[in-house]
């Protein structure tokens, strides 16, 4: 166990230059891209004086490295910037919006894993049967449907036609769990479907590969029941690459949450990103994108460590 802790510590240290580069990229997004951010933010409607004022407010009249240093030191103190639109602090907005996005992403992930992995397992176990063909067709279709459109269709079907679930709205999880879940079911389905299909596909191919291994043949040869072979010998090994893919694809969920939160009017981080885009609120976008990228990088670090835990062959000796 201490080996894993040391590994995690080492990886965390190695992350420092990466985080620094991430901050530079987020900064560059606003300040290095050709064109004048002040002009873009005004939408071409401001007077020359108004644009000049905004330039000053954004610090665009000072040298690049000075601005970057100032921004970075603020961030290290936990200050992600301030909205130009309504003057709120990004860190405060994040604090109350984060639980919503976290709940949405977690539920989507649970749905994707809960449906995708068993479907892939069945698909591999009954290769070339009708179960396999059906699962592969559903996978192909799920990979083609835009998540936000799926969301709209789910609203039409379950909320407008069948009247089973609320159309849009939100209830904090801390208030009333059941009510909150009713609001989150459709968004999570819409967001998780793509990842679920990816996982079905991956589980299937990973299982098929493992099922061809010698140790599986040995397990079968010694007369183990097929179910036991699949679950104990095959699935455990097949899961290893799946865990990595889940980690990499948390990015799909984080990115997709922006669109899904907009469709379902959920007050999450993604909705804030989109609202800031409408308002051309570049400082907020800059702070948010850095924040999300850091979350994403940390999730992947966690997955890497978990991976080592799952696969003893990778543990440092």
């Amino acid at each position: 166990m201490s080996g894993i802790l040391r590994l995690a510590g080492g990886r965390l240290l190695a992350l420092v230059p990466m985080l620094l580069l991430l901050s530079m990229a987020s900064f560059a997004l606003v300040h290095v891209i050709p064109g004048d951010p002040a002009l873009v933010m005004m939408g071409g409607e401001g007077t020359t004086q108004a644009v000049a004022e905004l330039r000053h407010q954004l610090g665009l009249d000072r040298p690049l490295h000075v601005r970057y240093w100032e921004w970075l030191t603020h961030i290290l103190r936990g200050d992600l910037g301030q909205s130009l639109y309504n003057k709120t602090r990004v860190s405060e907005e994040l604090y109350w919006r984060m639980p919503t996005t976290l709940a949405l992403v977690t539920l989507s992930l649970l749905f994707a894993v809960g449906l995708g992995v068993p479907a892939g397992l069945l698909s591999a176990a009954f290769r070339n049967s009708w179960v396999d063909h059906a699962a592969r067709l559903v996978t192909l279709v799920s990979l083609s449907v835009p998540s936000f459109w799926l969301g709209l269709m789910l609203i039409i079907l379950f909320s407008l036609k069948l009247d089973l679930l609320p159309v849009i709205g939100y209830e904090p999880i801390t208030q009333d769990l059941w009510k909150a879940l009713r609001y989150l079911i459709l968004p999570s389905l819409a967001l998780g479907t793509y990842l679920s299909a990816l996982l079905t596909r991956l589980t299937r191919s990973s299982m098929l590969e493992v099922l061809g291994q010698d140790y599986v043949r040995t397990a079968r040869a010694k007369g183990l029941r097929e179910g036991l072979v699949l679950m104990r010998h095959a699935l455990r090994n097949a899961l290893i690459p799946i865990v990595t893919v889940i980690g990499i694809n948390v990015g799909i969920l984080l990115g997709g949450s922006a669109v899904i939160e907009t469709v379902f009017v959920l007050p999450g981080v993604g909705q804030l990103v989109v609202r800031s885009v409408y308002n051309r609120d570049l400082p907020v976008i800059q702070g948010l994108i850095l924040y999300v990228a850091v979350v994403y990088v940390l999730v992947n670090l966690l997955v890497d460590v978990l991976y080592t835990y799952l696969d003893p062959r990778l543990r440092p000796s």
Partner: protein
Amino acid sequence: MRATLVWMRRTPLSVAGSAIVLLLVALALTAPILPLRNPGRMNVVKRFAPPSLEFWFGTDHLGRDVLSRVVYGARFSLRIGALTILLAGGPGVVVGILGAMAPPRTAGLIMRGLDVLMSFPALLLAVAVAAALGTGGRSIVTALAVVYFPRIARLTRGIALSVLTQEYVTAARGLGTSGVRLLGRTVLPNCLSVVVVQSSLYFAEVLLAEAALSFLGLGEAPPAPTWGGMLYEAQKNMRNAPWIAIFPGSAIALAVFGLNLFGDAVRDAMDPRLRT
């Protein structure tokens, strides 16, 4: 190449995929000469007409023909997809090959740079870049190219590295072949064939991302018929006119479905190990 085509004809799904892609390209190219209504013409009397023989896909909140807007939307989406792949693919291939053939330190630096770009969730990065550039088709293409360029570069580097370890490359080097010649004769052609195949799968992803960006209002300004933009407008009238949302979304799904089938099939066909 011949073997690839023969093999592809044997699998029904790849035939379906190719047919869908061809149909969409044909529709996009011939839209102006097809017997369609003007996609921008409003007809207030016929607002919210449900699908019928007169309007196959119904009309929208301004009485515009949804069918012709969907067909014209294919022009926008396919053009944006193609431009994005070209804009991301060119620099992507060059940087990828540099990452494989440059001195280790330079290559390492290049790869770290790509890692940084790939640490941002794809859709969020695209949203942020498009927001910084201002709305419109051009900024969508640029934003998506920024997202896909590192992916193509990584892919190219992987292939280039594996090509460079082949025996024929060692042999060519032993014979004193120059680096440039090696690049042009072996590395580049090998990389390009894989990148082109993979690009049809990226194309599908780009279509999905483009739809999402247009849906968020970052695409072409409203009168332009884009699939994502149509869905944005459809949202407000979902209760009484669901068809305005159903058809453009189906078009996106169909296009992505076709491209995925096509890309998977070509990839499998080019992998001799799978040819049984």
